[in-house]
């Protein structure tokens, strides 16, 4: 289940009134060790006051004359990834959470990034599978066509046995960097499992196959540490949308990843490096009104 803002938001919020003095706001912020405080007036949220606002203003002023009037907020259902995007786009430290015009919580950048760290694979520096599910769902909801490349290393268990698990980990780390450097800016990459990686794209099947071939070639031609020979097989699913579908986006992404993984197993068995999934899902991988 994708975590959303309501799971991590702080519900007990300190606020100040727009006509309170800066000194009072500063005292509340100091006492509660916070660097941002929502500003209310007549029961409505009218702005936010940050430590930065306070530094820039005269201490005699009222909060209304120092606060940031543009309030950036999200709903409690907003996903953590979307919240991260909002933080980055607006270069803010605290995000307010509103539900039906009422302030219900706030999320700090530190809190969000700590939570997101749980979806981050420390070995490869890539995100984990939940990231792909989220991005896939988001693209489908926007009406984009999506395709999935499932990359599975060949005989990785044998590499572990022959060279040791520590060497195996180094290969995975190197592979993570390699895939990241060869993936395009408009694609999404994650370490799906042990030696399995998934690339999510908005490409049609042909373009997706080109990318898969680039990635497989990059792996097979790369000189890994200790000259260990590493190859991979890949399976592709999606990229052949014809009609809109009724299935919910998460199930669609799950199906596509599953089909791509089965295709990669097929490619491995048949030693073809790359296989495209056959199945009924490829004809209907978009949802909504596309």
């Amino acid at each position, binding site marked *: 289940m994708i975590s959303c803002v309501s799971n991590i938001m702080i519900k007990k919020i300190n606020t100040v009134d*727009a*006509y309170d003095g800066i000194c009072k706001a500063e005292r509340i912020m100091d006492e509660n060790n916070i660097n941002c405080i929502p500003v209310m007036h007549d029961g409505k949220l009218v702005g936010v006051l940050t430590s930065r606002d306070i530094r*820039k*203003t*005269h201490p*005699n*002023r*009222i909060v*209304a*004359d*120092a606060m940031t009037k543009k309030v950036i907020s999200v709903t409690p259902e907003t996903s953590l990834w979307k919240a991260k995007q909002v933080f980055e786009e607006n270069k803010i430290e605290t995000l307010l959470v509103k539900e039906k015009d009422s302030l219900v919580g706030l999320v700090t950048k530190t809190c969000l990034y700590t939570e997101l760290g749980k979806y981050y694979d420390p070995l490869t520096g890539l995100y984990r599978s939940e990231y792909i599910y989220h991005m896939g769902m988001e693209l489908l909801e926007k009406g984009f066509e999506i395709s999935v490349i499932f990359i599975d290393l060949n005989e990785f268990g044998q590499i572990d046995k022959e060279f040791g698990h520590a060497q195996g980990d180094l290969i995975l780390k190197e592979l993570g960097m390699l895939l990241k450097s060869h993936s395009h800016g408009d694609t999404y990459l994650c370490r799906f499992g042990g030696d399995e990686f998934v690339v999510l794209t908005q490409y049609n099947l042909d373009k997706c196959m080109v990318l898969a071939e680039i990635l497989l070639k990059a792996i097979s031609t790369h000189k890994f540490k200790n000259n260990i020979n590493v190859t991979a097989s890949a399976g592709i699913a999606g990229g052949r949308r014809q009609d809109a579908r009724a299935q919910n986006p998460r199930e669609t992404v799950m199906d596509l990843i599953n089909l791509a993984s089965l295709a990669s197993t097929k490619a491995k068995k048949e030693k073809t490096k790359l296989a495209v999934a056959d199945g009924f899902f490829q004809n209907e991988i978009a949802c909504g009104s596309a």
Partner: protein
Amino acid sequence: MSDFVESTRKAEITIRLSEFEVPPMQDVLIVGRKAPIGPEAARRMVDILSPEQYEIVEIEHPVIEAIVIRKSLTNMITKDRLIPLILDEGGKVANESTIIKAQLNIVLQVSKSIDL
């Protein structure tokens, strides 16, 4: 022991009486970006003393944050014409931490002729 043989302590009190100006500002306030009173506080002050007679115009200026101006002036000459004029002169004396009070008189001169 004190060296002074005699000492006295006195306080002098001076009282100056004058009429309180309502509102305590005149026609225009030029509010600096780091002035002790911001435009919202100024508006609140004049709104209590002289309701609905002043308006705040927020300004894109390096040191001036806003101009609080008497509405009757902008009824005579549009803000677009008046504000640049105030900024032009006020900008020379204002700085980030000041609030400048300005008096502004507008005299309209109208001359018309008719055919006899």
